[in-house]
């Protein structure tokens, strides 16, 4: 639900970011309030993942200007792990494989670290096992998952489910999901959508980076932003996503250029 009077959860102003010395983000403004769902769409290479990684603090993505606040805290003053503990979650477009670390031990370590930082109780391996199995059921994930190495040899869909599982465990205030829907069959898409919908709560918010309107059949965004060339060139409601679906991006890019000129 749009929540114009609600508390600002994420506020980005004039964010510029460069990668390998090339400026990719050229001034992003974005305000996400508690309870809201935002979708960020846009053609390949427009800077969507760069925005997500800059917010999460990937060291290769250098913030060159602007600011971002999470719950009023200066995000860029925090290390990536501090951002995670403060309630930011990034669902990766390409989750990395970590052979040799079992999913179960990784998930428990992450969970306990974040819980500890929030002053909550940590779980021992047995307690955690019960807890995680509940979540697996909800997300329709095979428990064999737990004994495998993190993402190692996982199919694309399994990796994305694992991202959603991590999100479900860490219960972030703000989840930024970078193309968590791409490459999924319809069942996996439903699982991902359920995971997202079950996280959705009045004191949380979700930013979905997506290519397709498909996911938005399951999750209704309050705002749809279109990114191109490192900027948000248009913001609308979910009808904008439908329009993009039928008309593509070109009309927007052209009008954007006309405006710029």
């Amino acid at each position: 639900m749009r929540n114009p009077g609600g508390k600002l959860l994420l506020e980005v102003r004039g964010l510029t970011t460069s990668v390998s010395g090339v400026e990719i983000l050229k001034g992003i403004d974005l305000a996400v309030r508690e309870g809201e769902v935002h979708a960020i769409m846009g053609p390949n290479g427009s800077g969507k993942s760069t925005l997500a990684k800059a917010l999460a603090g990937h060291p290769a993505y250098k913030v060159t200007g602007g600011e971002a606040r999470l719950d009023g805290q200066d995000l860029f003053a925090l290390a990536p792990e501090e951002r995670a503990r403060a309630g930011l979650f990034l669902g990766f477009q390409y989750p990395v494989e970590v052979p040799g670390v079992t999913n179960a031990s990784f998930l428990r370590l992450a969970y306990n670290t974040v819980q500890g930082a929030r002053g909550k109780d940590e779980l021992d391996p047995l307690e955690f096992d019960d807890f995680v199995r509940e979540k697996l059921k909800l997300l329709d994930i095979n428990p064999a998952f737990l004994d495998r190495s993190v993402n190692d040899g996982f199919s694309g869909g399994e990796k994305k489910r694992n991202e959603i599982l991590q999100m479900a465990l860490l219960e972030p205030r703000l989840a930024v999901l970078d193309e968590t829907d791409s490459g999924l069959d319809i069942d996996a898409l439903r699982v991902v959508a359920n995971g997202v919908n079950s996280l959705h709560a009045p004191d949380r918010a979700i930013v979905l980076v997506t290519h397709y309107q498909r996911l938005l059949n399951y999750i209704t965004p309050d705002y749809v932003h279109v990114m191109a060339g490192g900027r948000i060139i248009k913001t609308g409601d979910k009808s904008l996503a439908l329009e993009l679906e039928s008309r593509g991006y070109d009309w927007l890019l052209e009008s954007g250029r006309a405006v710029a000129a």
Partner: protein
Amino acid sequence: MTESAAKSYAAALLPGTLPAGPNAWLNRLRAAALERANALAVPTTRDEDWRFTDLSPLYKTAYQPATFPTEMPREAIERLFVPEATSRLVYVDGHYVPEMSMTGDDGISVGTVVDSVRGAPGIAEGHIARLVGVEQDPFAAVNTAYLQHGAVVAVPRDHQASRPVQLLFVSTQPERASYPRVLVVVERGAELSFIEDYVSLAGGAYFVNGVTEIAVGENASVRHVRVQRDSEQSFHIATCGVSLARDARYASQNICFGARISRLSHNVRQEGEGTDCKLDGLALVAGRQLADTHSSIDHAQPNGRSRQLHKCIVDGAAHAVFNGRIVVRRGAQRTDSAQSSRNLLLTGKAHVDTKPQLEILADDVKCAHGATVGQLDPDHVFYLRSRGLSEAAARNLLTYAFAAEIVDRIPIASLRERLEELVTRRTQAKV
């Protein structure tokens, strides 16, 4: 070091004459070894095989054999026991300790060279010094000159040993030398798992000079776990020779936590058709340690298969060396061999020299090999940090994971778990 000093170091490790023992064959073997040791120069970095491993710190001291320890650290030693094993030989500072050993009857013969091994007479005489000769190798010659209570494990034809055998070599006295010796003979169709564990309990500078020989009979199978965890001031030089008869299978995990300078020469010869050899190695070194693994897999017959994964984790200003020689002889058609060397450098001062050495003389063969040297992947570190792990925790976990790929292959659960702990401790040293 000067030529003459290199010439006399092996001799300086030995007495002028050896006391005669009860076995004439052994006396002869030892006398011949003594003669070779006196004649051979120890290696220097001018020898191609020792190019990266400068032993001159060792050559400063002619370590003499330890006496039987006056105080036996029984409890500390017992903590090293692997509960799965029903046969165990314990050596402390090179001395056989029968009270702590156990030659349980699992249908296999376990004993020492000088005592005739129950159930397997003539085994030692028939096999020893065949796979690791004394002619060219001064360290093996010194070891053989001292040979007496070396461990002998013999598995008779078609017998499948259900429990692993543990051979435990403990060092407690600094400034001394010990000469561990192992002979494993597994007859046709038989199976064995065994552990060679070299541990320091007291630290200090000392010298371990070991020789292991493993003869795997036709269609027999050996699983070999070697663990080496000496003190940071010590020297450990060992040679392990393995022969594989037709359709024999040999799989080993060699886990090396190093010494000041450690060197393992692991040489496998496929002498029959259709053999299968797996060599997994992990060297984990820090500080100013140097760990050198030289392996050789010699495919002398057709249809052989070999798989090798060697990993080094190098921290501090340490140095790891891996030289993986793969030989495919002219007649060894349809050999299928793959070798991978993967190296993780944790600091800018850490250093690795890795080199495949392929000598392929047959034409119908598959030989894959590859080597990587690198740091932790920043994307991996970031992924873990984005889930709340501190940078140090993320790096530790990834370093551990790198090692775990090898440790996880150890077929003996309790040992695997202990090594997981040890690796965890090593990879977390810097939090």
